[in-house]
Each structure stands twice: as C-alpha cells, then as structure tokens.
C-alpha cells in the first residue's frame, strides 16, 4: 500500500486546494442574494410576504420541526422515494442486463420499452390512480417508472459496451457463466451503473414531488400544496430547501457507497 501513497497524494492535491476555493466561489451568489434580501426586508424596503427572507424560512423550519411535522412529512416522502427507487432499480437492472446480454431479448423488449419511454411519465398518473387507487401504490409506481428508464438504459448500454478483449481474458481463464458475470461483467459495468443509479435517483426525487402534488395527505409535496392553499410562502420555500438538502444528501450517500469499489477508475476527473 505504501507504494501507492505518493501517486494518490499527488492526484488528490489539486482537489484539496481547489475544493474550498471553488466552494466559496459557488456560494458567493446565493448567500449574497439571501443576505441582501434579509437586509432589505429588515430595512423595511419590502414586507417579504411573498418572498420570505431567510430568517423567516428558518423560523418556519424550526416551528415545523418542533411540532414533529417536518419529520413526519420528510419521512413519508423519503419512504416513497426509497420504495419507488428500489422497485425501479431492480426492474431497470434486470431489464437492462437481460437486453444487454441477449440480442434476442433486446430485439424483443427494447422497442416496446423505448416507445413507453417516449410517453411523459406524468401522463400515466390518471391510469395509475384508476388501477391502484389514490394512496401509496400509485405514487410509488410513478416514482418507480421514473427511476426505471435511466437505470434500464444505463445498464443495457454498459453491458453492450463491455470490452470484448476483457471478456476474452475471462474466457482464456475458463470462467463459468456466473463467474464471468461476477468477475468480469459486473466490475466492468459498475462505473456506468453508478451513474445510471444517480440519474435514477434524481428522477425519483422529481417524481415524488409530482406524485405528492397530485394529492397526498402527508409528505413534503403536501407541505408545498398546503403552503400554497393557505398562503404560506415560507412553508413552500422551507419544503423546497428540505428537498434540496435530502436530494443532495442521498446522492452523496450513493456516490460514497460506490466510491470504495471504483478506486481503480482511470478517467479524467474521477476524483473530483
């Protein structure tokens, strides 16, 4: 291990310098604007009713948290995304692996799936509600559909583009079918798979909002609707902030979970 240290250290160096600086630069605009708005409202230049200043958003968050409502709504949303993401990932991975592996299955399934993909997923909502009712099932299904397509496309593309030369190495060492999958194909598709999962997760968060806006009695999307109907913009912005934070957090969790398996990667910006 000690031998690899210098190489890794030099590779990481730019990051440790660039990261805080670029972070500060990136934060300049949003923090500056928020601060300016806060000051403007305090100076009485605006009453901040429609566009609440940061302090009022913070108060709203604190209040929602103190009654336990924030936790309840957040949990409901997270559970929906988790269920929909899980289903979408399982289905997308299976379909992608099968169509990537077998030209016959690709010819059979891919045209249909591509056609279904062309339908804006929200258009399914009325049908899902008719089929599955207005409660959890229809929402989770919608999220799963959103997650399915990027995962399916990502996995199929990744399996199709596995280097034949590397597969031949597996053949020379006389790997059995399962060993070929486990020792060659799986590691080879992993980088692309992580990217597919990340876009799937992003769409999952998008679709949970859609599902909850269309009717829910709890969830962050419900807080949005409630804030609109009762004229509480601070609550709407508070819910948006929570969406942003947990969306970013789950994406970070996914990349961190995958990182130990991708240390070998050799691509530009792999460490960024």
């Amino acid at each position, binding site marked *: *291990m000690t*031998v*690899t240290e210098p*190489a890794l250290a030099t590779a990481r160096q730019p990051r440790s310098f660039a990261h805080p600086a670029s972070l500060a630069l990136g934060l300049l605009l949003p923090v500056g604007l928020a601060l300016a708005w806060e000051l403007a409202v305090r100076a009485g230049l605006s009453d901040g009713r429609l566009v609440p200043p940061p302090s009022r958003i913070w108060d709203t968050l604190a209040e929602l948290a103190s009654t336990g409502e924030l936790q309840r709504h957040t949990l409901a949303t997270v559970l929906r995304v988790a269920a929909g993401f899980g289903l979408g990932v399982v289905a997308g991975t299976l379909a992608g692996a099968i169509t990537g592996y077998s030209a016959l299955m690709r010819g059979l399934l891919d045209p249909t799936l591509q056609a279904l993909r062309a339908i804006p997923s929200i258009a399914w909502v009325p049908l899902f509600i008719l089929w599955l009712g207005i409660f959890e099932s229809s929402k989770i299904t919608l999220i799963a559909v959103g997650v399915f397509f990027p995962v399916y496309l990502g996995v199929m593309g990744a399996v199709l583009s596995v280097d034949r*030369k*590397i597969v*031949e*190495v597996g*053949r*020379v*060492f*006389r790997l059995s079918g399962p060993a070929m999958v486990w*020792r*060659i194909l799986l*590691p*080879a598709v*992993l980088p692309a798979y992580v990217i597919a999962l990340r876009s799937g997760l992003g769409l999952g968060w998008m679709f949970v909002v859609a599902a909850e806006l269309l009717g829910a009695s709890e969830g962050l999307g419900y807080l949005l609707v409630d804030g609109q109907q009762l004229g509480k913009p601070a609550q709407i912005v508070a819910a948006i902030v929570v969406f942003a934070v947990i969306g970013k957090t789950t994406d970070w969790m996914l990349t961190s979970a995958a990182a130990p*398996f991708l*240390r*070998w*990667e*050799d691509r530009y910006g792999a460490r960024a």
Partner: protein
Amino acid sequence: MLSIAHVGKTYDNAVRALDGVSLAVAPGEIVAVVGGSGCGKSTLLRLVSGLDNPSQGTVALDGDTIMSPHEKIGIVFQEPRLLPWLTVAGNVGFGLTSLLKAERRERVARQLDRVGLADKANMWPRELSGGQAQRVALARALVMRPAVLLLDEPFSALDAFTRVDLQDHLLDLWADSKPTLVVVTHDVDEAIVLADRVVVMHPQPGRVFAEIEIDLPRPRDRQSAAYDFAKRRVLAALDRSLNRKITDDRETKSETGAAMWW
C-alpha cells in the same frame, strides 16, 4: 506436442484467413511466426488458444483436440488486457482461484518477483508503464504454469529499449520451466533472438510459406555474423513469400523488405 493439422479458417464475412496450415511444435520449443499484416498470424493463435475454432482441420495438444480454452495453454496479447479493477497482484492471481488463499498469495508473490515487479503488487494497472503492464500480463499467464504459451505480438507496442529488455526477460522466464512458446511477431529481430524455428507465413489465404531453423546458441549475440546470416535468410523468405525478386545486393534489398513488416 502441439500439433496443428491442415487447419483452415474462413470468417463469417467470407475472408479466408488460413488455408491448410500444418505445424508441429515440440515441448519446450520456441517457434516464431512472422509474416505481413493480415496473413492470419493472430487467427492462428486464436485457434490454438481455443478462443476460436478452425473451419477445417484440428488443433491438438498431446492428443487433446482444442475447441475451447485449455488449462495448459496460456496467451499473452498485444495489449496487456489487465483487469483495471484488480491490483497487479489481483491480476496475476486471477486464474488461481482453485488454490487456497495463502498458497495463491505465495505463488503470485513469487511470480511477481520473477518478472521484477514485486514492489508493484498493490498498484492499479493504470499506474504502470506499458512495459510493466506487459510484464504483469506475462506473469498472469506464467503463474498458471502453462505447457504452451502463445504470444501475439507481445512487445510490438513498446519502445525499442523496453522491447529488447523484455525479449531477454522472456527467455529468462522461459528457462524456468521451458514451456512451448509460439510467438507471433512482425519484428524479424525478435523472431531470431527468441526462436528455435521461424515460420514464415504467406498472405491471402494465410499459409505456411517456409520454416527456418535457427540453431544459434543462447544467449544470442545480436551483433554476430551468424545472427546476421539467420536474419538474412528469414528476410529473403519473407520477400519470396510476397513474390519479390531478390537482387544481387541482398542486404539492401532485405532491409527494404524489412521495412514492410515494421
């Protein structure tokens, strides 16, 4: 004994890559296969390795017909083809899964030591130079203790210094257990440094055109007159395989001929 008998190969696109190739290679013998680009050298090795099957004829090792990769036959390709997600040691031990962990580690360590990369065991393939990566590929094949090792232009992507280095190194490794080597190359010098016998191939369709014994003592002196003479014989055969006339000024003619293979 590796025997290639009346082997022909026609690809799906109707390209006739090999036609009636017969070759017998004794245990421990080093055979170099030379010939212009596209004359079926890689195809021949793929058939012997079992990665592809002949359209006619058979390839057999000690009477075993080769129709799929064989445990006693190893191959090193032009590219190292290391698995990027495994460390150097992981790559070398890739085929040793049937061994216990400790024994496997021991065999890998010893082989890495043999190729002079003991200190690189925990590196990723991307951290290696081209020559080091190709040594790892050699180690990965040799650690399996193959009876036959096939090499398809193994050093052609390397610079001249590294190439000469690795040719000597290959002979050194070969001396450990004396496996049969079949080395495809387009470098006549490489063929003469390495081989007991040089097989000259003829293109379209690929055929064996000539076989030239090189009975020079090892290690071979690349500067000696005997070496030069052997080289000229091979170059002349290559010329004739392409129906080129040989003029009186054989040496210059041979040099121009040589440029064609490089």
